[in-house]
């Protein structure tokens, strides 16, 4: 048996000592794409933040373990976590605009992030970023690099967050609602880009999204969260096409579908 890349064993997470997530067990292998869907407020972002050591002061994992390559990340100090974040685990934040620093240009922030991970050639970084921007329909990349976040649209900031995370080619990418602010032509391109990174670098991806169509297309396995618990978990085709649990059925039943005549 291959050792899973990431495993949650009976995880409970509390905010201010009140359990918010209970009894979550999940496993993903290298190269796998795991989709997490479910209720707003059910704890999807919380699961990701816990894996990245980003729960903040009020939150903590109060039971169970989270294993990255067999190592319990909950025992890691801040320093060890910092080394893991970036090249090993990357994250696209749900709210990219506010995850960026408001008073520095995108280009500076990008170079700084890369420098922390040993890449210092500004021109090379810029060239790669520009090529990536171009592939996800940001054709005036130079302007983007010279802009401050407030000078960009919601969808532009989201794409900046995507490029910042993907340019480091992390082994494991957490993508929290990565396409929610994008028009569907750009969404399709971003999905393609993520799939290509898995193809080329064997990148594993955890994608949280409300877009059941996207999950259905991308994910190998799907986890459905409801009220802090994992209600259904299995192969994408099984979960989406033949949901067993009431909540999953409700969720899939509520997906608005486009009428094409």
């Amino acid at each position, binding site marked *: 048996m291959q050792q899973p890349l990431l495993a949650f064993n009976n995880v409970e997470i509390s905010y201010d000592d009140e359990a918010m997530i209970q009894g979550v067990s999940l496993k993903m292998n290298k190269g796998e794409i795991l989709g997490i869907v479910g209720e707003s407020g059910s704890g999807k972002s919380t699961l990701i933040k816990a894996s990245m050591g980003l729960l903040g002061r009020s939150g903590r994992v109060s039971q169970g373990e989270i294993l990255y390559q067999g190592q319990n990340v909950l025992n890691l100090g801040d320093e060890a976590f910092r080394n893991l974040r970036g090249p090993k685990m990357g994250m696209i934040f749900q*709210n990219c605009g506010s995850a960026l620093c408001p008073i520095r240009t995108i280009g500076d922030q990008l170079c700084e992030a890369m420098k922390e991970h040993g890449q210092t050639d500004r021109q090379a970084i810029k060239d790669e970023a520009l090529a990536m921007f171009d592939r996800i329909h940001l054709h005036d990349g130079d302007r983007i690099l010279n802009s401050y976040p407030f000078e960009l649209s*919601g969808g532009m900031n989201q794409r900046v967050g995507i490029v910042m995370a993907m340019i480091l080619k992390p082994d494991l990418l957490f993508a929290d*609602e990565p396409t929610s602010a994008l*028009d*569907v032509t750009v969404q399709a391109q971003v999905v393609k880009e993520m799939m290509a990174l898995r193809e080329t670098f064997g990148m594993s991806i955890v994608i949280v999204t409300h877009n059941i169509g996207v999950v259905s297309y991308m994910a190998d396995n799907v986890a459905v969260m409801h009220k802090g618990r994992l209600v259904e978990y299995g192969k994408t085709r099984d979960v989406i096409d033949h949901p067993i649990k009431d909540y999953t059925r409700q969720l899939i039943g509520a997906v608005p579908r486009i*009428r094409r*005549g």
Partner: protein
Amino acid sequence: MSKILEVRQLVKEFSKGSKTIRAVDDVSFDVCSGECLGLVGESGSGKSTIAKMITALESPDAGGIFLDGKGITGLKGREQRAVYKDIQMVFQTPTDSFNPRLKLGDGIMEGMINHGISRPEARKKMLETLKICGLSQEYADRYPHQVSGGECQRASIARAIVVNPKLLICDEATSALDVTVQAQIVELMRQLKSENHMAYLMICHDLALVQQLCDRLLVMYQGKIVETGTPDEIIMHPREDYTKRLIDSVF
């Protein structure tokens, strides 16, 4: 139906160094009472900039905006406050609607109190509206960073509708919500539309949702409106290249 909002030949430019971008390029449209007008289009095509000009967060470089026939650009002080009771906005990023230092409940009550409603009455209305938006009473005492994106978005919808605006601008208001909550919000919007004749300008990337809710649709590309019609007309028979690509990209 009477016209509530008229937007005429609106232009907005931003300059960056030697380059100037025309974010909004000669845009005109109307919204009638009880109507839901959808605004879809390319990311970066100027949708939020239009919303910001209507709500006076940005000022237009040219063109006019009229509410009930009265020009509303460049108003100040009391006149401006009176107009902006009638126009409310729900932002793309829900936390933008709230002061991070205020509890959600206080944030929702702020507008009512500014318009002279007593505190106890405002509190009562606030709790009722939270409930309508699917949030229990305890959320009134939470800070914006203590709730999920979807919960914060429901609170910001409560903040906007609590003052009974004539026009509600929703900028990607449902994109942070799961589809079951989305359906509840859509139902709520329908109800306010038929009972209170509330009008909407709905900026949204989800074409299926737009098709469910909107009476009319504008498609934007590079600062301009490139196509208008009913959602069915546009989705079933798109004319412009960009619109065709948009519809073909839906998963």
